[in-house]
């Protein structure tokens, strides 16, 4: 397992895909978390392009969310939908491409157990993920301190408890989506279909179902426990503005409580990982 982990870390580190996806996430997080909000805050005094922010109160709320003590929330807000989708892609391609290039076939014949090979991949993805969330948090802090300095606002650090909570929530949400990608890559034995199915599910199907649930009560029983609902609810519970708020982030909801969302996300994470391992171990190695 240690050898597999080291090999997979090497692959992920040298792999352009990893850098592209993680870089995309960092840029999106900064752009939607800070840049655009700050620009619309700045434009409140007449210069123009965000006419809806006329009201000083709204502007204050906007600025409030750009402050350093809110960074743990900004870290989480983008993950239920956009960040999750990117990490799902990373999980799906990491596992799927091994089938696509035929490398799993060789690796499975040289490892004592197939679990070891996939377990090493999962661990390597976990390390990449933890690193990515940490970097995101640091960048968010830097961005918020910059805004605070530019607007001569007090610079209060987020409390340790808030930071830990935000970091944990971010890790859980993103790990769940990444694990979903790993499972899809395993199921479809290839990168393309796995990515396609995963994105359609996380970006389209869940949203459509939630739309239907609004009209049709019983459907809500199902949509309340979907992975995306759980992810969005945890982000909402941590303090991110929900998508119904004008300044909210798509994907963030308040459908279920924080504890329920955490349990549900943990259950999905375990289910996806265990499912991938079981499937890999049981299945015949094709040609």
């Amino acid at each position, binding site marked *: 397992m240690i*050898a597999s982990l*080291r*090999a997979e870390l*090497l*692959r992920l580190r040298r792999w352009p895909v990893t850098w592209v996806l993680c870089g995309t996430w960092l840029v999106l997080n900064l752009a939607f978390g800070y840049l655009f909000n700050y620009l619309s805050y700045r434009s409140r005094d007449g210069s123009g392009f965000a006419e809806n922010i006329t009201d000083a109160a709204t502007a204050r709320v906007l600025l409030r969310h750009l402050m350093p003590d809110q960074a743990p929330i900004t870290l989480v807000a983008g993950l239920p939908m956009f960040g999750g989708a990117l990490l799902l892609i990373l999980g799906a391609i990491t596992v799927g491409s091994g089938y696509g*290039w035929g490398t799993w*076939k060789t*690796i499975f014949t*040289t490892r004592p157990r197939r679990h070891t090979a996939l377990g090493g991949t999962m661990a390597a993805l976990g390390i990449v993920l933890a690193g990515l969330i940490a970097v995101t948090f640091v960048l968010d802090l830097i961005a918020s301190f910059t805004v605070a300095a530019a607007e001569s606002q007090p610079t209060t650090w987020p409390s340790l408890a808030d930071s830990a909570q935000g970091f944990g929530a971010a890790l859980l949400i993103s790990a769940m989506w990444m694990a979903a990608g790993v499972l899809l890559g395993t199921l479809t034995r290839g990168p393309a279909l796995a990515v396609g199915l995963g994105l359609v599910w996380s970006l389209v199907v869940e949203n459509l179902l939630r739309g239907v649930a609004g009209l049709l009560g019983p459907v809500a029983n199902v949509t309340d426990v979907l992975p995306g609902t759980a992810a969005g609810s945890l982000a909402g519970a941590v303090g991110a503005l929900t998508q119904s708020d004008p300044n909210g982030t798509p994907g963030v909801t308040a459908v279920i409580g924080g504890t329920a969302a955490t349990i549900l996300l943990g259950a999905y994470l375990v289910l996806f990982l265990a499912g991938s391992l079981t499937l890999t171990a049981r299945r015949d190695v094709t040609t």
Partner: protein
Amino acid sequence: METAIEVRDLVVVRGKREVLHGISALIPRGSVTGLLGPSGSGKTTLMRAIVGVQIVKSGTVTVLGDPAGTARLRRRVGYLTQAPSVYADLTVRENARYFASLYGLGAVEADRAVVDVGLGDAARQLVGTLSEGQRSRASLACALVSNPDVLILDEPTVGQDPVLRDELWARFNALAAQGSTLLVSSHVMDEAGRCGQLLLIREGRLIAEDTPDGIRAAAGVQDLDEAFLRLIRAQDRTATTADGGR
């Protein structure tokens, strides 16, 4: 001579068809054994059974004293699949290092394997941009990197020029001289002469198991190509006579 691989009465069904009909063969340790036969004769299937990834209907395959596919064998057996098995979006060197680190080995072993297959100059090239022959050598480097006791190589020399083929075969024989056991499949009969021992299979049956010289003597010709044709025709005749007698 000590036996490294023993195949006994191996029957394999793939899809709904029986593709190996009771093959028995002994592969000696520290030698290069050639596995030759027409396309579709069951070479890859036999190799998969030896590596332990093929579901077998009946019969046994024993490798270094253990049943094929046993967990502790997997470290000792290297397998080059017929289709290249390397990440196209990594360089040759990165691929070799990836496989090396799977065995707990480092950059030194990886670089050596890359040079051994003649890809030293292309080490920093993305596998996706390699020529077909280069890509299959990149895959070979990854199979060689761990220096396993048993090496199962499925058509490692396809698409290579005569000079490179010669170098690769010299390399295989050098590995055997150091004690490794190699089973190498091929379509090309002029490579058969470089093997210590030959297995000729046809339509899922073993029709000859001998040294190149033994096969030449049995067929009564010097040219191995011709010798194989004669053996195949002789087998056809026996089959027809047997049918006619029923």
